């Protein structure tokens, strides 16, 4: 399993969100489809911290309009976005 396959990305991002934004929460509660922005887990600053993490961890760059619901609202969406960016890089 590579670090950039879907399951690895989801697991890595889930760990980041739990450690940074939801300390003490039961990891089971953070499902792949749980809304992060509309659910109040990510605010504008946390979004920037998440983007910083994704850019550094995966060597990808986010554009301004991608810091939005469409790209970041769930673990699934975040993972798809990262994967699409990784594919673009190849």
């Amino acid at each position, binding site marked *: 399993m590579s670090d950039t396959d879907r399951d690895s990305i989801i697991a890595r991002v889930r760990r980041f969100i739990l450690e940074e934004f939801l300390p003490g929460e039961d990891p089971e509660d953070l499902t792949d489809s749980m809304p992060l922005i509309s659910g109040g887990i990510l605010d504008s600053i946390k979004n920037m*911290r998440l983007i910083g993490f994704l850019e550094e961890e995966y060597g990808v760059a986010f*554009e301004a*309009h991608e810091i939005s619901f469409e790209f970041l609202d769930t673990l699934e969406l975040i993972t798809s976005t990262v994967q699409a960016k990784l594919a673009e890089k190849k």
Partner: protein
Amino acid sequence: MDFALSEDQRILRDEITRFAENELNDDIAERDRGQTFSREQWDKCAEMGLAGLPVPEQYGGSGLDGLTTAIALEALGYGCRDGGLVFSLCAHLLACTVPIWKHGSDELKERYLPGLCAGTTIAVNAMTETTSGSDAFNMACRAVKDGNGYRINGTKIMSTNGPIADIVITYSQTDPEKGAYGGLTGFVLDAKTEGIRTDQKFEKMGLRTSMLGEVVFEDAYAPEEAMIGKVGGGTAIFTQSMEWERTLIAAAHLGTMRRLLEDCIAYARTRVSGEHTIGKHQAVSHKIVDMKIRLEAARNLTYCSAWNLDRSRTSAMASSMTKVFVSEALVQTALDAVQIHGGHGFLTETGVERILRDSIGGTLYSGTNEVQRNIVAGWLGL
């Protein structure tokens, strides 16, 4: 990080200082009293290249990195006693030119950057509204799709350069449901566009030579090409421009603090009270020592933040910390400078009280210091 100035940076600093001292300091008290913006001095600054410092040379800028831009603005803040002029220039460069340079299409860059860098075009950043200041992203202003563009409606207040602006950079809700997360979009429009009014001018306690006004949009049409970046990118674009503004206005403040420090040392060494010059009284000398400590700490924070501007997402935290520390250091330094000058410091003619009045704005614009502390708290995971 190495902040030792290179030969080129030293030359730049000295040239700007000399220019500002010689060209920008006439009639400030009168202009301050009359709330007059000096287009002549603006043009001189632009001729010196100050309106486009970090912008690439292909668009008419000087292509300086963040740190060198900070050094240049520090020199301007040191040499120029007109805080309002420096502030207007910074708002134009950092909140208006930077977002077009960083996110504009090639067409927007070619259309606007040469005039902005040459200072022949003056820009306003219109974000704040009556009901959304600190909570800026919760704005009422709407841009509704209309054909190949958008119709913008709303009123922006407290916009620096508004009354003298040729172009307007503004942010509107293009998708209120998404709000700050993909629902805000930036636009750049000619101020003379039908449906835009910029005639209102506010009176204020400081920075009085900088014009502050309203920008009103009444069905103003923005074609698709007027969009900065893509639809929904407004939050990140505005945020980045504020990081530049918070860091680099602080750089100009370093120069002001250095000048106040030197003025106070000179005054304390010559003003006699009783047997001694006032600098021999510890109560006075310690104030001056604290000015020096604040200045050195402020410079380190600012240079570090400026160096970081293009390097890391964490520049957001650095710029907020810099903004808080430096703006408060400037207020304290200006307050102490008035005290050290005694009753003379309270008189308009010494110019010290004007700096104190100007300094207060620094704790408010580019996001209040309370909001900056919230941002840092967020980055600390609090």
